[in-house]
């Protein structure tokens, strides 16, 4: 095993140990659950699956052809197969969008929980707080890529071919950044001190 591989294995095992601590501490679990849920809702809102447009009643509608769940609508965006309305909330359920959202949200949640542990552990090691949150931002931006990146209006940028191509990589970019950030934070949390 080369030195680099040993280092990577060390990082991963140390991060895994730190994640294990998250599972054992109520306060860390609370941070994990709260952040995961918050990011999940935020992501679903930015991709347009979740909105406050309900008319107050309860509506459930499921399409006849469930195979549409696999139809791509864009970059890591998939066709919803059910509409759920309850009170002011409208949710378009796309199983694959939900999976993407859950993966991203969990990564953000674990990042935040580890950041929290680094913050409360007895001996601080110069932990860079909240880098995990920022790593999730690209994925939020990807939500605007659906029907013309209207988010660009806010910044006054015209969509070029390069920019549109870049939108394709926002979700995978977010995953890479979140995993990288997780390893970085995990390295700085010492399970022995918790």
């Amino acid at each position, binding site marked *: 095993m080369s030195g680099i591989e040993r280092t990577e294995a060390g990082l991963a095992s140390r991060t895994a140990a730190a994640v294990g601590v998250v599972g054992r501490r109520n306060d860390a679990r609370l941070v994990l659950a709260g952040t995961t849920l918050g990011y999940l809702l935020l992501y679903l809102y930015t991709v*347009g699956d979740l*909105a406050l*447009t309900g*008319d107050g009643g309860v509506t459930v*509608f499921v*399409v*006849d*052809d469930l195979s*549409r769940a696999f*139809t*791509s*609508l*864009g*970059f890591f*965006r998939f*066709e*919803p*197969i*059910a*509409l759920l309305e309850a009170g002011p909330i*409208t949710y*378009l*359920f796309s199983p694959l969008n939900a999976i993407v959202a859950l993966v991203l949200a969990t990564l953000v949640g674990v990042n935040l929980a580890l950041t929290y542990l680094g913050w409360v552990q007895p001996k601080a090691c110069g932990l860079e707080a909240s880098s995990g949150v920022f790593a999730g931002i690209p994925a939020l931006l990807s939500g605007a*890529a*659906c*029907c*013309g*990146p*209207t988010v*660009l*209006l806010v910044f*006054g940028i*015209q*969509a*070029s*071919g390069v920019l*549109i*191509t870049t*939108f394709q990589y926002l979700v995978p970019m977010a995953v890479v950044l979140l995993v990288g950030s997780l390893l970085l934070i995990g390295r700085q949390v010492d399970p022995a001190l918790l």
Partner: protein
Amino acid sequence: MGVAGLAGCVGNSGVLSPGGSGSDGGTPTDGEPPGSTTGDGTTGGSNDVLPAKDPPVAADRLPVAYDVGKLRNSVQSGGPPKDGIPSIDDPKFVGTAKGDEFLDRDDIVFGVAGEDDVKAYPQPILVWHEIVNDVIDGDPVSVTYCPLTGTAMGFERGTTEFGVSGKLLNNNLVMYDRNTDSRWPQILATAIRGGFEGRSLREFRVVWTTWEQWKSLHPDTVVLSKKTGHVRNYERDPYGMYTPKRGYYNSTKILFHTLNDDDRYKPKTVVIGARVPDGAIAFLKESLRKAGVLEGQVAGVTHTAVYDDRLDTAYVYRNPDGVSVSLDGESATATIDGESYAPDALPLEPVHAFDAMWFAWSGFYPETEVVE
């Protein structure tokens, strides 16, 4: 009744021929072989034989101001893949009472009044689908809408259907036909790629109006149902809002590359545009609201636009003799030589016209005449 008749019912017959006849063409074999109809003579590259029967095309090509190669190179991705914005292929309709349950009086609808069928297509639904493959008066048609250019247009489709390619030209929806996969920018209504390259579709008028105005004039109308076969949040417009105008519709920003920048007016200023054999002419909609009747010249020929306040729209006529037209706003009638006519039924030669955002119109037709 055919779509030609349908077009007449809304006051503007279909495809405008370079001969100025306003003819809607006829069957594909009625027209000259592709490549021999030069229109304004600025495009090329047509094929020698028709690749397929459908979609039916006009006998004459509509004006195209650019070389087709330049247009093809200017096409760009809008983000979604082909059919990522799904057309509605099995539309369901409901009556006005049901329509009132999900439409507000000021919601934008796109109206088509045939002899037998009178239908409204709500903008809040079409913004998610852009194309409805429907049948009106027995004729297979596509009612199309591009949110980024503010254009609602109708085309005959024959036995095929149109779909959303996911590409844009000058910010305008590029459609594809499911028979040959030819690419048709909506405003040009002329294929720029594929077997139908250089051929123009047969068009019919789709009126941009409000739900209240449409059902007042056509109380027997039906309206496209939200049961589209797809799950979308029809209460939310991804680009902004029309009542009141917000977001993209009210912004001076344009999202994608434009073919031409003409800053005489704000980009989203609405014009009633008409293509004529020798060019194009645009009437500012706000000016039409105030003046009622406007006249402009294209290659020395007078064209008259008449406002119809019943639907907040206007109709354009070729008026080579310069016949005087006046409008009585109270009774919504136009008068010629003491005779009264509905604004959509003047005894002049109708020219196909439609609402468009200024930047889009001037992008496709940079030499356009403008009347305000």
